């Protein structure tokens, strides 16, 4: 079990501000480092392979200057920004990259990535987007192919024991993060949304045990803080895909609101569902990534009526609203995102039907439009006050 790391928040700040710093250090000591996009990447398999998984992120404050020569501007602005960062050498320390088939912006640019960046290892996980029995069987095979490529790359066999150990470590990591999330349920949360964002970002840049120690350290530190006493203010939930910077969070919290919960692919989506321990450990991984994760790119067929189907797709959000006593939701969707964009009316009406107002913002992965976004957030918070 990972021990709590002291000075957790300071460590989170360090890993957030100098993203990948630990991975670079491990690289120099001989470890192999694999970058990946998307919460759909089965990190358990990377950990079992003995490599260090690092979630790729961009920089919202940096303009895209190199990627536009290679990738069309109607591709997801987040994906373009990360590719831009990679072209500029930010990820030069990686030994390889894994891109799961989350969406068109990843699928259709995989060749652009693999031809444009010279790393020894590349893999595209061709996930299906339906969850019926043939899809489960197919996914199991797809993950076995993934395992095979890693074995070839690292020169060592990945045993069921390795996989089971990695599953256990990542489940422990998720449990630790959920415990930290629990502290946000308080009337006046002792951890701010901005601090939480830094922890989330730091956590995805570390080997799993170190990540767990960091989260525990933060949790202990936050628990040690005196209970907050600020007057009641709006409690906000943020919904979107990969938001990995405090800029937007600061825009929300700068108004006096608390960001208390998220449904982000860097946040609760990463931490809410565990992998079940199954006799074939790959099966548990398949079940989590294909069925338990609620991603807009994975079709949910459950429900004999439309309202039952909505419940199957978004019911967990209702629970978040209740558990975290959310007053308003900000739906922050990147431009050119078909998976999230097409579900805006459905998810918006679902959340509103639960009695919580929703602000929908479509924007770039960039701080260039932050002023406009801030104005809209302020107006929204005034409206729900």
């Amino acid at each position, binding site marked *: 079990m990972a021990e709590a790391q002291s000075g957790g928040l300071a460590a989170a700040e360090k890993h957030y501000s100098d993203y990948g710093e630990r991975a670079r250090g491990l690289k120099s000591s001989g470890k192999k480092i694999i970058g990946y996009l998307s919460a759909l990447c089965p990190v358990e398999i990377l950990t079992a392979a003995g490599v260090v998984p690092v979630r790729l992120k961009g920089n919202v404050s940096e303009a895209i200057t190199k990627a536009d020569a290679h990738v069309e*501007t109607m591709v997801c602005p987040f994906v373009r920004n990360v590719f831009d960062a990679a072209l500029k050498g930010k990820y030069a320390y990686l030994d390889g990259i894994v891109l799961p088939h989350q969406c068109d912006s990843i699928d259709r640019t995989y060749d652009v990535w693999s031809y444009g960046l010279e790393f020894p290892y590349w893999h595209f996980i061709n996930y299906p987007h*339906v969850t019926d029995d*043939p899809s489960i069987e197919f996914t199991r*095979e797809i993950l076995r192919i993934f395992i095979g490529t890693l074995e070839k790359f690292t020169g060592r066999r990945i045993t069921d024991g390795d996989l089971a150990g990695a599953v256990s470590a990542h489940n422990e990591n998720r449990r630790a993060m959920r415990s930290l999330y629990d502290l946000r349920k308080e009337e006046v949360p002792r951890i701010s949304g901005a601090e939480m964002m830094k922890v989330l970002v730091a956590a995805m840049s570390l080997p799993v045990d170190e990540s767990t120690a960091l989260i525990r350290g933060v949790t202990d530190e936050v628990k040690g803080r005196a209970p907050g006493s600020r007057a009641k203010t709006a409690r906000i939930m943020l919904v979107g895909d990969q938001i990995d910077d405090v800029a937007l969070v600061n825009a929300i919290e700068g108004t006096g609101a608390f960001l208390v919960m998220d449904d982000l692919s860097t946040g609760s989506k990463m931490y809410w569902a565990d992998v079940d321990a199954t006799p074939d450990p790959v099966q548990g991984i398949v079940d989590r990534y294909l069925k338990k994760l609620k991603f807009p790119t994975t079709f949910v067929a459950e429900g004999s009526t*439309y309202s039952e189907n909505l419940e199957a797709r978004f019911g967990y959000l209702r629970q978040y609203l209740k558990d975290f006593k959310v007053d308003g939701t900000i739906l922050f969707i990147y*431009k050119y995102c078909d*998976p999230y*964009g097409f579900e805006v*009316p459905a998810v918006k009406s679902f959340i509103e039907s639960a009695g919580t107002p929703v602000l929908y913002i479509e924007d770039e992965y960039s701080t260039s439009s932050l002023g406009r976004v801030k104005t809209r957030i302020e107006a929204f918070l005034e409206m729900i006050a």
Partner: protein
Amino acid sequence: MAEIRKPRALATQAAGKAGRFGRANLAATLRAKEEGKKVAYAYINNAQDEIIRAMDIVPAWGENFAGVCSAKRDAERFLQKAESENFSRSLCTYATCTIGFDMWREELGGEMPPNTPWGGMGRPDMIIGSAQQLCDPRIKWPQATRHYLQDVPVWMGTMYYPPWDPAGDHREQEELYVKYATEELRSLVRFCEKHTGRKMDWDRLDATVELTDRTWDFFIDSYELRKTIPTPMDTGDAMNTMVPLTFNLGTQEALDFYKELYAELKEKIAHRKGVAEDEKYRLVWGAGLPSWFALGDFQYFNEKGAVFPVEVTYRNAEKIERLDLPETRDPLEHIAWRWVRLWTRWFDKARKRPGSLPKVERIIEYMEDYQCDGVVFHSAFSCRSWHAGIIQQEQVLKKVYGDVPTLIMEGDIVDISSYNEVDTRNRIDAFIETLAARKGRR
């Protein structure tokens, strides 16, 4: 209201007839109820055509309806309707156009919105999705549509192909993909049986699959006649003649259409009738769906002496013998093999040319077989599936094959607000000058 414009000139009679297929397909969805048939919203290149046809289900193709709205420059009101519900303009405009139409028709209690192009589409009894087979909207479009047609059941299945890996051999994974695709098609059969109340007639499915094989063959035979100089048909027409292949696969009418096209092109070749009066430049339409509202741009190319004897877009077929399909008695497995092999068709060629890509090899093959001088791409801002990666294709083409003249046009498939005719034609003029200078140097 639709803008009144002079129709685009067509070089072949077949292209004129193809438009009637599209109109008839929409009309069939409106008549279906009276005929006791079920209507399914479906999405093109789904590998599901034969099942739908064999089950006597009437397909209502969203891309067909949206394309017609676009060509008639009458999509804006439907796009605005969708936008009013927070569907962004940056999303697939095929989808948002039809969703806007669906929303409006539901608000009118099932009546068609006023003056809907070609009478509109019939309300579906079911929606047959095809997941991420081609694009993200394949999952999200049916789901979003159901938000407004809540009583309509949705089936979602899929078909993938092995990812391109220059260092690997896709054949090692082919059977896995085919097995998966076959099971998905089997699931669709069960869904159709449930919602039509009828059992699949497997003999009829066999016959329909065989009809499709022959249609693919005739389609390619007729299209390959365009290798002739001067070419008897170009991409401007092909954007019409693709209709039977794309929307009527698995029907005798589609097969007959390509037989007629073959005969017409033979006749034109015999009389040396080309698309352009003076054919100077031969071009590959390298990638991208066209701006349906600006098909006149093809004619503009023709007026400059430039023709497109071949295109990647909507050429979703191959001679069956070239696919070397394994023998099987299962028609669903045959369908799966046919599509998977179509998608991996250029993998081997790409592997033999270091640094190349399958999509680039396809363009190179067309350049050589059709004796082309350059490549034109179209980048549609609302569609990532077909249009992300075009810049790379252009770059790789130049890197592995030499300095080929290329042009990337920008616009959209449906949303006319993205289009600037003057700017587009200035860019075409500049490209033609490049081609002329290149020819002059030879």
